[in-house]
């Protein structure tokens, strides 16, 4: 059983250097995802438009960051969670590190005003991070993007513990979260997450995402889907004309694990260049070299554009400015 009463004694971290900004982008990774998390950090370093931004890389003890990435000036953080997250649901692809993101606002509560948490399976396309960090969150702890099934079906039930939900069905994807550290602490979100994890042990299938959604009970602000575009794999042609800032490869298919070549080569080129330079021992993403475009490909293109297109247009139109959050 998870002992949530004494979690403060169990969660701690050591960091490689002090904070150098009041804002941070944070990633959590284990050794399996380290190259891809570092690729995201590298892209952030290349592209962000902030005057100063700490890039915090929360790693497990078995992670070794190559010397070639010293220029990123990462704030490397090794989290020790004791038994705080022990026993929570995990699948074959994930380790306990998936829950570490929940501890970040607590661990860095005095260092940063706002933290942008990012998953490692993302691709950064936009750079307006300075304005993102300063958006009005209305005193809420979290700004995030709805999970993709709710884009065209906003009332679709996604909460695994529906009986615990008291306010709204809205449910966000926790791959990209802008976190206000003060609000996060004052509302006791981590305590509630741990209590829920304890209560529904083994019933959570979306890991931290279920816990934090349930703990917040709809009390979060919505960001434009431009900040966490989740259709790049399932409907690849769907967002090409939109000003996407962050593309998120949800599901089991990733640029580096694309067994039937459904992810566009363009997402793999930049990652491969990074891997060749910093992880030459890794094989890189396989890119299908040539071949005909099948009828099925054309059909998919057509379906991407017409399937629930009106509902999608309504959803996108809710965010006339991708730097204004909504209730």
């Amino acid at each position, binding site marked *: 059983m998870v002992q949530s009463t004494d979690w403060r004694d169990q969660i701690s971290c050591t960091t490689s250097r002090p904070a150098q900004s009041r804002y941070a982008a944070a990633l959590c990774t284990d050794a399996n995802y380290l190259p891809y998390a570092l690729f995201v950090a590298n892209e952030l370093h290349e592209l962000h438009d902030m005057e100063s931004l700490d890039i915090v890389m929360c790693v497990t003890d078995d992670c070794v960051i190559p010397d070639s990435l010293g220029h990123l000036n990462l704030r490397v953080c090794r989290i020790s969670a004791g038994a705080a997250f022990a026993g929570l649901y995990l699948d074959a692809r994930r380790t306990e590190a998936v829950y570490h993101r929940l501890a970040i606002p607590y661990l860095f509560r005095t260092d940063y005003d706002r933290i942008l948490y990012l998953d490692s399976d993302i691709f950064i396309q936009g750079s307006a991070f300075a304005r993102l960090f300063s958006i009005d969150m209305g005193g809420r702890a979290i700004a995030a993007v709805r999970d993709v099934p709710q884009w065209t079906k906003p009332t679709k039930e996604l909460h695994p513990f529906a009986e615990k939900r008291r306010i709204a069905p809205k449910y966000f994807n926790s791959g990209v979260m802008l976190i206000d550290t003060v609000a996060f602490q004052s509302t006791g979100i981590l305590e509630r997450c741990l209590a829920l994890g304890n209560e529904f042990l083994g019933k959570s299938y979306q890991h931290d995402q279920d816990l934090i959604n349930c703990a917040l009970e709809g009390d979060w602000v919505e960001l434009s889907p431009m900040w966490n575009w989740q259709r790049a794999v399932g409907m690849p042609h769907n967002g090409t004309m939109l000003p*996407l800032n962050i593309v998120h490869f949800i599901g089991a298919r990733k640029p580096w694990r694309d067994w039937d070549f459904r992810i566009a080569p363009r997402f793999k080129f930049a990652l491969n260049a990074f891997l060749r330079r910093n992880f030459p021992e890794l094989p890189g993403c396989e890119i299908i070299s040539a071949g005909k475009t099948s009828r099925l490909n054309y059909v998919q293109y057509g379906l991407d554009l017409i399937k629930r297109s009106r509902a999608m247009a309504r959803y996108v139109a809710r965010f006339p400015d991708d730097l204004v959050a909504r209730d």
Partner: protein
Amino acid sequence: MFSWRPDTTKQAVVLACDANFLPYASVLAWQVAVYSGARDFDIVIASHEPLDLPPILTELGVKSRQVPRSDALNVMSIHRLPIAAYLRMQLGEVLAEDYDRILYLDSDIHFAGGDLSRLLALDLKGAVLGAVRDVNVFYEPNYHAAEFKLLGLPPTPYINTGVLLIDTAAFVAQDIVGQAVATAKQRPDLFVYHDQSIINCVLKGNIAELHPGWNWMPNVRLPAVAQHQPIMFRHFITDQKPFRAQGFSHDHRFRAAYVNFFRTYAPQWVDLVPATPGAAPGYDAAIGFKRFWDQYRNRKAINAYLARFADEWSVIRWRPVDEK
């Protein structure tokens, strides 16, 4: 930022521009420096005038090279184009002492990433240059270029000169510039597409044909095809450039790439890219359907063209048409 201090290399990626196109050339030079992996080649921005490169490019080891104007090239038509458009014709000669191979790139190109070291070392099978055939070949396998019609030649592979992989020794040995000047003097009517026309008329199909992913031109028309092809260089032909007001029909990410670079590394150029019309562009299924139909009805010709390449490293050697 990692640093690049080349010692000796005999290969280079070369861009040519004037001061007006320097912002866009800078974005491409940065993309080549960052997204080509462990690079072992130089990156050079050539110009007739001295250029002030953004500091980030200097940090990455990108070189600026001033090339004197060639009086011989004054015979070329410069209708609508800056004289810099003909600079590419000089490069094969001017840079021959420094480099065995150069990859020339137009400045209105987006680099997604790829192994340019391998491309620079590609076997051109004796050809002076490797290039991609012009965009018409996607739709017309036997495209008969106007210039070749004027020369009385049969349909012959006609290249786009936005991306040229040049064997400099062969370029000098065959006096391509001298032949171009002579052709321009004799047949000024051949200037249909400026330097591209003259280079094609000199080569007459004597080329190493490269995979279209090295110079992908149907950026607006073939999105479904592009999804499944290795496309390294996107070339924004026509006036619809993503960094111009007419360029909103392109995928938004191309515009974003320019905005990202300017905002982060060259704020003095941020205003060059017009703001996206409206706060968030509409979700236009009608345009999508039009593109779907355009691709679907041309699918046989498109597939036939692409199926000629085993992969992006394939080289198809063509012989000069008058030798056939």
